[in-house]
């Protein structure tokens, strides 16, 4: 999947990867690739500024910590981030239901 198509959804995807607990940047990238079956193809260098933007918005917090013997900046969801993720999920379900109703049912109108 091309990065242009992902750009509008990157914030929601990043929030979703942090839903299970705090992660450092590279672990977030690995989680994105793993959970998408490797289909999410975006320059990993664009993820870090996006995480900082989410932090600026109050959706995540971060701190330096030592993980596996190496210092890493670790991110976790805030209450506002959890609410934003919940809203994004509801909007996504509504969107996919609507699109699926049009695209997913084969030729329309149905022919006898």
């Amino acid at each position, binding site marked *: 999947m091309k990065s242009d198509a992902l750009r509008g959804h990157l*914030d929601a995807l990043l929030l979703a990867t942090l839903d299970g607990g705090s992660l*450092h*940047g*590279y672990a977030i*990238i690995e989680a994105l690739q793993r959970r998408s079956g490797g289909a999410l193809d975006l*320059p*990993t*260098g*664009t993820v*870090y*500024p*996006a995480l*900082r*933007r989410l932090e*600026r*918005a*109050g*959706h995540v917090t971060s701190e330096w910590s030592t993980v596996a013997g*190496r*210092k*890493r*900046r670790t991110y976790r969801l805030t209450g*506002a981030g959890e609410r*934003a993720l919940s809203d994004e999920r509801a909007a996504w379900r509504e969107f996919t239901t609507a699109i699926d109703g049009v695209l997913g049912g084969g030729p329309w109108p149905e022919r006898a």
Partner: protein
Amino acid sequence: MAGAGVIEEYVGDLDLRLRGPAHVKADLLAEARDSLDDAADSYRDRGLSAEAAERRAVEEFGPLTVVAPGYQAELAVAHAATTLRTVALLIPLTSVLWELNQRFWIGPWAGFDGPPPPDWYLFAARANGHLPWVISSCAVLSLLVGRLLSRYGVSGTTLGRLAGGVAATCAVLAVSCNLAIVTGTAALDAERLLMPAPVLGAAAVFYVVLIRVGVLAKRCLALSAV
């Protein structure tokens, strides 16, 4: 850890492209380097040579032309926040410093001899008293609005430009108001401007802060120009 120098060179080039607060830049670059090292380690574990692993990690990270603007936007917004905090704190602080000096060394202002001063002079005097607090409130409000706009996906460069505009406007307003009262006083009773040295010193500090705010505002615009 991989050590072929490809990551080192990439991070060095990214460093050269970015401008902004040194501590924020160092933090962003440290995180980028960690991520590249993690990726290279992962590829090395899968059997690639050190150099090939680093090249793959750098390729995945993205071309500098794609990656650098996002980092620069974060540096711009960090500088913008510092600028607005400076405006919010230092302008009222130096104003209070001047007021305290004036009360200690001069005491309450005596009334003008002769006819009362014109309305515009009284207006300028009142504006001078209130303006530092209005400016401080505007800066705090701008910080809060910036946080809100971040939630709606407004970019760091846009926020940087807005902060630069707010700070520059505040500095111009403060200078204009101050010059109006100084010029008015010179016209009505020039002797009043011969104040004790500590009061003049406090006025000089006020102007130094305003110049500093002007420089910070200009830098906001320069760092946001990506």
